[in-house]
């Protein structure tokens, strides 16, 4: 394999991993607070369609991104009303949100199918983008890729060093104890949920505004689900979410590159690579029950009933 090809593979790996990274980071924060939102796919689709329509009608990509953040939050709000306020089953609510988002985005986007838009273009960072092999992958991407890296870093710092970060973690572990020491469980969960929604909207917008600047019904093609698996895969750790998203990106690129190189492995088999990788890690994690219990937030998925 020549250097150019490796450089290009790494570049594509980062791009392919970016929508997964954005969505998974949002879900990570949400789950850390104890809320399990399986509606990522639906929120992503809404972010993709609204972001695209907004950018197309106003001619402003940034406006498109903002609208996708807002619509992601609006979708999350719907989830919050049911799952946080009314204490509905989180799994069922999340699944309903995905179905709702898939249907609504298809309906809203009908008139916008087949329209073209000039998406976000790569922004080369001088000097750094000339670094061999890694330079192109990390420093000649579009602005949303840089944002995703910045957000990952911010979340890592947030959980590692900040008091609010500790607060979110404490609430995810034991909302009752958190209440006892005076932490606002409901408000914190709402904020984490809304952040997750915004990130899912952004992940959708990455597809429709940067990666493949167009709207197509169901264009996320299951990426919201993969992002959900990634969070478990990464055992709720930010740095592992980043690596996992890129690993998944790499696996899905390699399946195409290997075919182009004439590798005589069944393309169907190769296509399962990323999923296999996810399943293997999930199995490894869950093979040790006490370990996986330690990793997942203790109250994940459980509605919170304030005592008294």
């Amino acid at each position, binding site marked *: 394999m020549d250097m150019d090809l490796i450089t290009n593979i790494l570049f594509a790996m980062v791009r392919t991993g970016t929508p997964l990274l954005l969505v998974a980071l949002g879900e990570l924060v949400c789950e850390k607070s104890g809320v399990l939102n399986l509606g990522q796919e639906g929120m992503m689709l809404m972010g993709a369609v609204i972001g695209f329509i907004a950018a197309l009608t106003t001619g402003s990509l940034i406006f498109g991104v903002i609208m996708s953040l807002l619509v992601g939050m609006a979708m999350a709000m719907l989830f919050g009303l049911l799952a946080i306020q009314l204490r509905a089953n989180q799994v069922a609510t999340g699944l309903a949100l995905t179905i709702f988002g898939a249907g609504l985005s298809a309906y809203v986007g009908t008139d916008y199918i*087949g329209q073209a838009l000039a998406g976000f273009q790569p922004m080369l960072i001088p000097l750094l983008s000339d670094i061999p092999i890694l330079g192109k992958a990390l420093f000649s991407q579009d602005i949303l890729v840089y944002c995703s890296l910045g957000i990952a870093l911010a979340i890592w710092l947030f959980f590692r060093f900040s008091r609010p970060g500790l607060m979110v973690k404490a609430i995810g572990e034991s909302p009752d104890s958190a209440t006892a020491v005076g932490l606002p469980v409901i408000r914190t969960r709402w904020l984490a949920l809304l952040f997750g929604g915004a990130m899912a909207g952004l992940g959708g917008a990455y597809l429709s505004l940067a990666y*493949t600047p167009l709207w197509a019904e169901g264009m996320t093609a299951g990426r919201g689900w993969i992002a959900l698996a990634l969070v478990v895969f990464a055992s709720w750790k930010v740095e592992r979410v980043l690596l996992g998203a890129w690993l998944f990106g790499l696996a899905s690129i390699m399946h195409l590159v290997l*075919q*182009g190189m004439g590798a005589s492995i069944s393309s169907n088999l190769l296509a399962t690579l990323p999923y296999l990788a996810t399943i293997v890690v999930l199995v490894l994690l869950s093979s040790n029950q006490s370990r996986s219990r330690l990793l997942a937030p203790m109250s994940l998925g459980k509605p919170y009933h304030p005592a008294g």
Partner: protein
Amino acid sequence: MKSLIKKALVSVATAGLMTLSTLSSAVEKPLKVGFVYVGPVGDAGWTYGHDEGRLEMVEKLGKNIETTYVESVSEGADAERVIRKLAQQGHDLIFTTSFGYMNPTLKVAKQFPNVKFQHATGYKRGKNVGTYSARFYEGRYLTGVIAGHMTKNNVIGYVGSFPIPEVVQGINAFTLGLRSVNPDATVKVVWINSWYDPAKEREAAESLIAQGADIINQHTDSPAPVQAAQDKGVFAFGYDTDMTRFGPDAHLTGSMVHWGGFYTDTAKAVLDKQWKAEDVWGGFSAGMVEMAPYNKAIPETVVAQVEAFKTQIADGTFTIFEGPIKAQDGSIKVSEGTKLNDGDILSMNWYVEGVEGSLPN
């Protein structure tokens, strides 16, 4: 999950349809023609093409016919219900436009012997069920000729959906056209195992470009490969519809489907009581395949050559799958003077010389 949404869409569409039919029953009796679509009419691809065909038929036949359509009908149990409903509502002619509607169409057709059915892309016929499809590969041969002239690297990338005969036909026809003018050029095929996944299509196109392809062809339904080519400064061919707007510099042309003529003729045949259950597999001659506008980057001499081929294919003086044709390993697969019959073409599961990689089984 998806079928739930589709169910909802279908019920809305059928409800609309029922009101429509009650409203119009007062008027004189035009031929009622029903269409069942697998996607939304705005998909810019397959279903859009069929609906354009329906509209052309309406324009040509005017008051003699009356059409209804139901969109986004999933290929399972829903299809049978929708088709039966159309038959019950007194439609005289029903077009079912997706491969997966084959068995439901035949089943309903048995219960309604007086209704005429036309099923697209299937292989089973009945007393009142005809089939039809287009010879997309004829257009692909022409894109191959253009690619042969336009490539500098002599490597062409091909984004494939599933390794089924319809797609393999296209790859082979393309490669034959390519090598007829440029024997050194080769085709790299990448399968994405989906008809429609814009992100994956784009990844596939980009990985092919990274591996030296300077022209991208596709047998998937979204314009993402054309977008990728535009961004990377290479050429591409679209498919199904004119995809120029997704890559004004990149898009050379594409093999497009055109159903309007066939729909008009079929409805006319039913009106004139001339209709028979047949298999129609039309290409340029039937007007079922057309080329998208040619990019200005293609030299006029090449356009002239391609147009000449098109005329010869249409009038039958040139046959694409006529020997000698070498298989991938260089052995003679089709001997000189032999023409492949439709059965051979419809079951094609081998690559011609010039295609790289092995065909997955």
